[in-house]
């Protein structure tokens, strides 16, 4: 059986096709990041962009490119990659293809923390809110993990149930507070929809270590995550310590989602849709799936950020709204084609 032997001897993630694909996606990302610098309310030429980045002269053009466009050209791919990887892990962890970091209540927890910080501590600066958001996401993940693990089993169903419960609780707290306090609603609405606008580059640098550690944990867990796709007995029979793997996987999700929500607020649907695209491209092996999800997520968020500048031109739409509309439609297509 020559056909069988040619594929069985090489694992999928070593196949040359994947490497070429990843290189192609990387190149595409580079192009999109350039377009993110060039396109918007005003268009800039390559010469202007190059000058602004290498020979900054304080002109309005250079300020816009360096201080407004550059942070979002850097941050959008980071957030997209983080949410893409987090989505892959959550869907495997919960054995549920329509789960995402939202399902675990992480974004709702972040939003609640932001409303709390703004309402009780009077924090209104973006860096302050982003710290609150990250803390909210991290704390929520520990609570959800703790409750899901409390019964000993930490079954996928239990993870989802606990997560959805907390998402609902936090969301209703947020709405109650915001309904009662209209000034706060005005201040926080843009944050709550998710956006990359008006962020400083420093915010991306703060998020970078979380993103890196989360990604390394994810890649390290690739093989055990492959096996977590089977039932618990089979996974244990293959020598996977379920509790340890689930604990580390949860930590990775918390770091990645925390970094994302701190940078951009709750950007919906990226963590839900991107893993589907990644699996369609490279199959179910997590090593390839995680790399593909990072690249596709980065592309998706960057593209959404550019589109957000034009849908209600000359004003700007929240990127979370764009990712939700595009993602929602994509998911409908997926659901129509086969059970997502």
């Amino acid at each position, binding site marked *: *059986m020559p*056909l*069988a*032997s040619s*594929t*069985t*001897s*090489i*694992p*999928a993630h*070593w196949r040359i096709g994947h490497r070429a694909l990843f290189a192609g996606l990387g190149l595409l990302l580079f192009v999109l990041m350039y377009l993110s610098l060039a396109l918007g309310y005003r268009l800039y030429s390559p010469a202007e962009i190059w000058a602004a980045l290498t020979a900054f002269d304080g002109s309005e053009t250079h300020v816009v490119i360096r201080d407004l466009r550059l942070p979002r050209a850097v941050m959008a791919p980071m957030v997209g990659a983080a949410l893409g990887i987090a989505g892959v892990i959550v869907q495997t962890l919960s054995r549920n293809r329509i789960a995402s970091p939202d399902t675990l209540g992480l974004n709702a927890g972040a939003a609640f923390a932001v409303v709390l910080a703004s309402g009780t501590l009077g924090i209104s600066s973006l860096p302050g809110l982003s710290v609150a958001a990250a803390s909210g996401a991290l704390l929520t993940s520990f609570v959800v993990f703790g409750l899901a693990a409390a019964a000993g089993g930490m079954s996928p169903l239990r993870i989802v149930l606990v997560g959805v419960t907390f998402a609902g609780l936090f969301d209703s707290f947020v709405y109650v507070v915001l309904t009662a306090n209209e000034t706060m609603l005005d201040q926080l609405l843009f944050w709550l929809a998710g956006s990359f606008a008006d962020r400083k580059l420093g915010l991306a640098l703060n998020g970078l270590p979380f993103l890196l550690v989360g990604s390394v944990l994810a890649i*390290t867990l690739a*093989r*055990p995550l*492959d*096996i977590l*796709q*089977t*039932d618990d*007995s*089979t996974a*244990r*029979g*293959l*020598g*996977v*310590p379920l509790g340890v793997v689930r604990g580390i996987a949860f930590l990775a999700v918390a770091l990645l989602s925390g970094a994302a929500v701190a940078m951009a607020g709750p950007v919906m649907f990226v963590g839900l849709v991107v893993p589907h695209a990644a*699996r369609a491209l490279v*199959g*179910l*092996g997590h090593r390839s799936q995680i790399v593909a999800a990072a690249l596709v997520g980065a592309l998706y968020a960057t593209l959404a950020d550019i589109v957000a500048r034009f849908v209600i031109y000359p004003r700007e739409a929240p990127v979370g709204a764009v990712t939700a509309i595009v993602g929602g439609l994509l998911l409908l297509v997926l659901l129509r084609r086969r059970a997502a």
Partner: protein
Amino acid sequence: MDKAVTVTALTVAYGAATALSAIDLGIPKGKVTVLAGPNGCGKSTLLRAIRRLHQPKSGEIRLGDLPISGLKEKELARHIGLLAQNPSAPGDMTVEELVRLGRYPHQTMLQPWSAADGEAIQAAMFGTGVSHLNDRRLGSLSGGQLQRVWIAMVLAQETDIICLDEPVNHLDMAHQIDCLDLVRRLNREHGRTVVLVLHDLNLAARYADRLVFLKGGSVVAEGEPVELMSEVLIEDVFGISCRVITDPVHERPLCIPIRNSTPRFRAETAA
């Protein structure tokens, strides 16, 4: 008799309920041992305890001379393979992707893939006759094909001992025989020690080298099917009056059930 696994005074409990009490049992090396008994007798629990999926309340299980409680997860997984009851995997996973999972206990972070892994996967798929299905998605397979693929995954694990928990539960008669013939071939040709949980007594008698009867969390009797399958013992263990004849084809004992003989059941049907 050389023992692959020795169980000594094993007690397993779920909370307050005792599932197995003070079990002593030896699993002979290179043979097919079948654990049989009525529902809730503890046969699956015993199999899972041997694979350390249940922590014993007391007692000990040894692999050769090694107590399994001292082994690391992957180490144990290199000695004992498990085909769980009703195993599951995503329907869009390919056959080869699933079989490849069986290599996990042999891989490390620094050595994620070796030539031995590729050879083991090929051998396992060839041995179970699923090589031609390698790119097929699990969701597109029939029940019989799927069970062969799962067995291939366990086989790729290359363990001396293979535990199978009710592997023919949802298969039709032809595929039951097909699956158990395959398991016996793995035992005869590859020298694997096999431990099977079966609740079909006649299948148990047909495929077992050694048959173990459990009832109420204890081992009631063990031995070769021919010496073990007496009408009195079967009535005691399964609560059914029966006639035992010799299967004219395989010359194994064959149980013909007559009626449920438990007092409670008799009272209910009388009323």
